[in-house]
C-alpha cells in the first residue's frame, strides 16, 4: 500500500528510537503531561514517591531500598508512556520530512495580467495570497495549491501520491486542480492560488503525520473522561485504605500505596492513547488519504451506507464490445467483419473495442479498410460508419435509427437480440450493410474485476453499497446485479443524489459518498463522510472531509478499516488495562495485609517471593506492559471484517480474558527475577 519515499521502517528502527528516547524526557514538561489525565496523575505520584524516598533515605527507613526502586519504576511508567507517543510521532515525522523535502522551490512566478503569461514577477511562496495568479512551466515544482485557469500539462504527482506515471491536468472540467509539491513534466499552466500558505495540502499532510495539531476525536474524548473517572475512583480506594488498615493496627508505607495507585489506574491505555491516535492517522496517510479531521476518520468507522458513482468506480466507464449477434442467414463472421470495417476509423472507446474484439476473434487485418470513407456520428443521423471504395455503405447505430434507415421493422431475430441485450443492461448496436441488417453488436459496461469481492467485504462490515448512475433503471439493475451492490439509484441527478443522502440520514444511517466532480460537492458536503478524489475539482475537495490521493473510490474500505481499527485498539487496550487490575490486587493486597491477617496469604495465588517483591513486581509489570504493547498501539489491533458480535467475542477473549491471565504470569515471572537478583 505504501508508495512513499521513506521505505517502511521497522517499528523500532534506531532512526526512530534514539530521538524518541530524548523526546520521552522532553515530554516530562507538565504542560505536555497535563493533556493526559492518567499519565499526569502517574507523574504527580512519581514526584510524591521521589520526595518520600529522599525522606526515607534521610531517616534510614527499612523500606528505602524497595521504595527507591518503586520510585524509579514509577518514573519509568511515565517515560514509557511518553516514549510510546514519541515513537508514534517519530514515524510521522519521518514521513513529514519527506514531504517537506518536496517544497524546495521558494519563488513563484506571479502573473500581473492572467491573460499575458510572458510578463511575471517572482514572489516568495510563503507570501502568496489566495486569488493571485501564477505561472507554472515545465520542470517547475507547483508552489502551492490552485485551480488551473488556462493550459494543459502533464504533472508528476509522485511526491504526494507516490504514483510515478504523470497525469494530465487541464483547465475546466473535473481535473482542474493542482497540488503544491507536484512537478510539471511538460507544457505550462496558469493557476489561481486557492490555499492560504500554511493551509495547503502539503501543510495539512505534514501537520497530520506529525500529530502536531492533533485534535482529540469524539470517542477519544469520551474515553478520556471514563479513564479520568476510573482514576478518581482508585484515588478514593487507595487514599482511604490506610484508615481501613489502621483498624487492625496496620500502618501502610505511603510509597506502597503510591505503587498500588499507579498499578490500579489505567496507565496502560492512558499511556498508549495518544500513540494509538497518531498511529491511526499515520496509517491513513500511508493509505494515501488525507483526513481533514479526526472526527471524519472515526465517522468512517460508523458508516452504514456507501454511495458510489458507477462510472469509473464500479465499471471501467466505457462500453465495450462483448459479442456479435448475427441476423438470420448472416454468419457471425460477416457481421463481425462489417462491424470491424465500420469501426476502423471510429476513435471512440466503443469503436476501438469493436475493432479489438473482431480482430481477436477472426483475425481481420486493419489494411482491409484502406480507402474507405469515414462517416462520423452526428446528432442528425445518429449513426456512423464507412463508405467502402466498392460503394458499399456500412452503418452502425441504435436500433430505432437503424430500423428507420433500413426501411421499417427489424427482423424477428434481430429484434429479439436487441431486446435481450438491452434487458441485460447492455447496449445493442445494430450493424447494416446498405439496407440489410446484418445483426447486433452487444456493447457492455464492463465491471472492474475484483469489485464484487470488495463489496462483499463491505457487506461483512455491515456497510450497504448503493450505486449511482445516469443509466436507465433496466441497465442499472443489470450492472448492479453483476457488481454485487446492494442497491442502485438510476437516472441520477445531483438533486436526486442529495435527496438520497438525506433520506438515508433521516432513517438514521451514516452515509459515505465518493465523488470528484463539482456537481458532487453538495452531496459530499451533505454526506457524513465525503471522500473527494484528489483528481477532482477544488470544489469537490473542499466539500469532502477526506481526500483520496489515489483517486480510488474503493479506498473507502481502507478508510473504514482504519477508523474501526482506531476504535478497536482503544477499546481492546482499555479492556486489557482494566482486566489487569484483578491480578495486581492478588499480588499487592496480600502483601500489604498479610502481617495483620496471616490468613490473607491465601489471596497470594501466585506464591510471590515476599511482600516487597510482590509490590515491586506489580509495578515493574505495569511499566513494562506499556512498552510491550507499543507495537499493537502503532500497528493497531487486527481487524478483519466480521459481524459486530464476532468481533466483540474475539476481542473480549483476547484482550479481556487475556488481560485477566497475562499479568498473573507476567508478575510471577518478574517476581522470580526480582528474587533471583535480590532486588527486594
Amino acid at each position: 500500500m505504501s508508495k512513499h519515499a521513506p521505505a517502511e521502517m521497522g517499528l523500532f528502527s534506531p532512526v526512530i528510537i534514539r530521538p524518541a528516547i530524548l523526546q520521552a524526557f522532553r515530554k516530562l514538561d507538565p504542560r505536555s503531561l497535563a493533556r493526559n489525565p492518567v499519565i499526569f496523575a502517574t507523574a504527580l505520584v512519581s514526584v510524591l514517591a521521589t520526595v518520600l524516598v529522599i525522606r526515607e533515605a534521610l531517616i534510614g527507613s527499612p523500606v528505602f531500598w524497595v521504595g527507591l526502586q518503586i520510585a524509579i519504576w514509577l518514573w519509568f511508567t511515565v517515560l514509557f508512556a511518553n516514549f510510546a507517543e514519541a515513537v508514534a510521532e517519530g514515524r510521522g515525522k519521518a514521513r513529514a520530512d519527506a514531504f517537506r523535502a518536496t517544497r524546495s522551490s521558494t519563488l513563484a512566478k506571479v502573473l500581473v495580467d492572467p491573460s499575458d503569461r510572458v510578463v511575471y514577477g517572482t514572489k516568495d511562496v510563503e507570501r502568496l495570497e489566495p486569488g493571485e495568479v501564477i505561472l507554472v512551466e515545465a520542470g517547475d515544482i507547483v508552489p502551492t495549491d490552485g485551480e488551473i485557469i488556462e493550459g494543459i500539462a502533464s504533472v508528476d504527482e509522485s511526491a504526494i501520491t507516490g504514483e510515478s506515471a504523470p497525469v494530465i491536468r487541464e483547465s475546466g472540467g473535473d481535473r482542474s486542480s493542482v497540488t503544491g509539491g507536484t512537478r510539471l513534466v511538460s507544457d505550462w499552466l496558469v493557476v489561481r492560488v486557492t490555499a492560504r500558505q500554511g493551509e495547503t495540502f502539503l501543510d495539512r499532510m505534514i501537520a497530520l503525520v506529525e500529530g502536531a495539531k492533533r485534535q482529540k476525536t469524539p470517542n477519544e474524548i469520551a474515553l478520556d473522561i471514563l479513564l479520568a473517572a476510573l482514576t478518581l475512583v482508585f484515588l478514593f480506594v487507595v487514599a482511604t485504605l490506610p484508615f481501613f488498615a489502621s483498624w487492625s493496627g496496620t500502618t501502610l508505607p505511603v510509597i506502597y500505596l503510591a505503587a498500588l495507585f499507579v498499578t490500579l489506574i489505567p496507565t496502560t491505555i492512558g499511556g498508549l492513547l495518544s500513540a494509538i491516535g497518531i498511529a491511526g492517522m499515520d496509517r491513513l496517510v500511508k493509505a494515501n488519504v488525507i483526513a481533514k479531521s479526526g472526527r471524519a476518520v472515526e465517522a468512517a468507522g460508523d458508516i452504514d451506507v456507501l454511495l458510489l458513482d458507477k462510472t469509473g468506480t464500479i465499471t471501467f466507464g466505457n462500453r465495450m464490445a462483448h459479442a456479435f449477434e448475427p441476423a438470420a442467414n448472416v454468419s457471425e463472421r460477416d457481421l463481425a467483419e462489417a462491424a470491424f470495417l465500420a469501426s476502423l476509423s471510429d476513435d471512440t472507446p466503443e469503436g476501438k473495442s469493436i475493432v479489438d474484439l473482431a480482430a481477436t476473434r477472426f483475425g481481420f487485418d486493419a489494411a482491409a479498410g484502406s480507402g474507405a470513407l469515414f462517416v462520423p456520428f452526428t446528432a442528425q443521423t445518429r449513426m456512423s460508419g464507412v463508405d467502402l471504395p466498392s460503394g458499399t455503405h456500412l452503418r452502425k447505430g441504435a436500433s430505432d435509427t437503424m430500423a428507420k434507415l433500413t426501411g421499417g421493422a427489424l427482423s424477428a431475430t434481430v429484434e429479439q437480440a436487441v431486446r435481450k441485450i438491452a434487458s441485460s443492461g447492455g447496449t445493442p448496436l445494430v450493424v447494416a450493410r446498405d439496407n440489410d441488417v446484418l445483426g447486433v453488436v452487444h456493447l457492455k459496461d464492463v465491471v472492474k474485476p475484483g469489485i464484487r469481492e470488495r463489496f462483499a467485504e463491505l457487506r461483512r462490515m455491515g456497510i450497504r453499497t448503493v450505486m449511482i448512475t445516469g443509466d436507465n433503471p433496466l441497465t442499472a439493475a443489470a450492472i448492479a446485479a453483476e457488481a454485487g451492490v446492494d442497491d442502485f439509484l438510476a437516472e441520477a441527478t445531483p438533486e436526486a443524489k442529495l435527496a438520497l443522502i438525506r433520506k438515508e440520514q433521516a432513517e438514521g444511517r451514516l452515509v459515505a459518498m465518493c465523488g470528484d466532480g463539482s456537481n458532487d460537492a453538495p452531496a459530499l458536503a451533505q454526506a457524513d463522510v465525503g471522500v473527494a478524489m484528489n483528481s477532482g475539482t477544488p470544489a469537490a475537495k473542499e466539500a469532502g472531509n477526506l481526500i483520496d490521493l489515489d483517486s480510488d473510490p474503493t479506498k473507502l474500505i481502507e478508510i473504514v478499516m482504519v477508523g474501526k481499527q482506531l476504535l478497536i485498539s482503544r477499546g481492546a487496550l482499555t479492556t486489557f488495562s482494566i482486566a489487569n487490575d484483578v491480578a495486581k490486587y492478588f499480588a499487592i493486597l496480600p502483601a500489604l495485609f498479610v502481617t495483620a491477617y496471616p490468613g490473607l496469604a491465601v489471596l497470594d495465588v501466585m506464591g510471590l517471593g515476599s511482600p516487597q517483591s510482590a509490590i515491586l513486581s506489580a509495578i515493574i509489570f505495569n511499566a513494562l506492559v506499556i512498552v510491550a504493547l507499543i507495537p499493537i498501539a502503532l500497528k493497531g489491533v487486527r481487524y478483519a471484517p466480521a459481524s459486530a458480535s464476532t468481533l466483540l467475542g474475539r476481542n473480549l477473549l483476547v484482550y479481556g480474558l487475556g488481560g485477566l491471565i497475562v499479568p498473573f504470569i507476567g508478575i510471577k515471572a518478574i517476581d522470580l527475577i526480582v528474587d533471583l537478583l535480590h532486588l527486594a
Partner: protein
Amino acid sequence: MTLDLVQFLIFAALLLALAWPLGQYMARVFTGEAQFLAPIENALLRLAGQGRPQPQRWQAYALSLLAFNAAGFAVLFLMLRYQNLLPLNPQGFGGLPAHLAFNTAISFVTNTNWQSYGGETTLSNLSQMLGLTTQNFVSAASGAAVAAAVARGFAAKQTRVLGNFWVDLTRTTLYILLPAALVLALVLVALGLPQTLAGSFDATTLEGAKQSIAIGPVASQIAIKQLGTNGGGFFNVNSAHPFENPNALSNLLTTISILLIPVAFCFTYGRLVGDRRQGRALFAAMAVLFLASFAAIYAAERLGNPLHAGLVDLASGNMEGKEVRFGILASTLWAAATTAASNGSVNAMLDSFTPLGGLVAMLNIQLGEVVYGGVGVGLTGMLLFVIITVFLAGLMVGRTPEYLGKKVEAREIKLAALTLLVMPIGILLFAALAIVTGQAQASVQDAGPHGLSELLYAYTSATGNNGSAFAGFTANTLWHNSFLGVSMMLGRFGYIIPILAIAGSLAAKRPAAETAGTFPTHGPLFVTLLVATILIVGALTFLPVLALGPIAEHVSILAGQSF
C-alpha cells in the same frame, strides 16, 4: 437440599408468573393506556394545578422530583420531631432528636428506610402511618417515575421532553402501588399480621410472668414496605418479627413482593422502548447476578460457623440471628433478594451471618443496587452500567457506541462516569472519615475485622439506599445520623439526576438504523459483558476494604481465631 431447591424454584416460578403480566400492565400505566381510575387521577392533578399537564424536559422533570422530595422531607422531619404534640400516639413517645429526625426523614424520602431507631419503641402510630407509610408509597413512586421518564427518553426520537413527573407520580401510586398494597395487606392480615390502632396488649405467660406484646397497624405498612423496595419495618427486627412475617407462606409472598416490581420493570422497560428483547436482556443480566449472589450466601450460611463446630450441629447451618420457621433457605433467599433489590427489610440478622454470607450481601449493594434494585431506580442504575458497557463494546467492535440506536458520546459518558464516584465517596470516604474521627470505633459492637464490616455495611446500606444493617452498629448518634443522611442523598440523587440528564440528551438524538455492523445489546454476549463490567467495577472498588473486613474475618475464623 433438594427441598431447598424446590422451594427456590417455586419462588422463582411464582415471581416470574406475576412479574411478567405486571410489567406489561405497568407499561400501560406509563403510556397512559390504563384509564380506569381517570376520574380520581384527573381530580388530583387538577387540584395540584396540573389539569393539563405539559411534558417536561429533563431539567423540569428533575426539579419537580426534587421539589416533591424536599417537601416530603420537610413535612416528615417536622412530624417526627414533634410527634409528641400530635395525635395517635398511644404509647406517648417523645419527639425525635433533630439528627434522628433528619436521618429518618431522608431515609424514607430516598426510599432507603435505614432505621437508626427501634420502630416499636420510638414512633407513634401517626408517625408510622401518615409519615412513613406515605413516604413508602411516594418515594417508590418517585423512583418509578424516573424509570418511566428514562425509558421514554431512551426511546424518543428527536424530542426534548421525557413526560410529566406529577402525572407519573400520581399514576404509579394510584394504578400500581395502592391496589397492590391493599391486596397484599389483607392477605397478610389473614396470615396473622396485626392491623389495629391499639399499641400493645398484655398477656400472662404460662410461667406467670407479664408479657407486654406490641401490636399496631402492621400489615398495611409491611405490604408497601415490601412492594416499594422500602424495607422500613414496623418492628425493630423487621420481618424477622413473627408479627411481620409469621410463617412460610407469608415469607414466600413477601419475598416475592420484594422483587416483584423491580423485576416487572425490566419487562415494562422492554415495552416502553419498543424492543422487548432489551428488557429481557437486562432481566437476564440481573438474574445471573442474583442467582450467583443467592447461591453464595446460601452456601456460606448452610456450611455454618466453623468456630462453633463440635458445639452446634452444623447440619442446621448458621442459625444465630435466624428464625426456625424460615431456616437457612428462606433466610438467605431473603438476604439475597433484599440486598439485590435495595429493600432494607431483614428476616434474619445480617450482622450474625457468616463472613462470606455478609460479604455477598454487602457486595450486592456495593455493585450499585442494580440487581433488580429499587423500584425504578434499580433499572435506571443498571442503564448507567449499560451506557458504560455499550461504550466499551462499541469501541471493541470499531463503531461509535450506540444504545437503542442512540450514539453514546462524551456527554453521556461524562454523566455515567460521574455516577461511578457515588459509591466510593458515600462508602469509602465517609467510612474512613468515621474511623479518623473515632466515631466508628465508638459505634461498632464487635471487635476485630467484623467491627469494620459493621461500619462498612452501614455506609454501604445508606449509599446504596438499601436500609438494612449489621444491626450491632449503633448508628443513632449525631455523627452517623448526619453522615448516613448525606450518604443516602448522594446515593439517591447522585444517580437519579445524571440518568435523567442522559435520558434528556439521548431523547434529543436521532436514532440510527440497525445494520449488520450494529452491535446487538440483547444477546448473551452483551449480557456477559454487562455482568462482567458490573462485577469488575464493584470488585475493583471494594476488594481492598472487603479484604480487611469480611475476608479477613473469614480467614481468621478458619484459623480458629475469635475477637
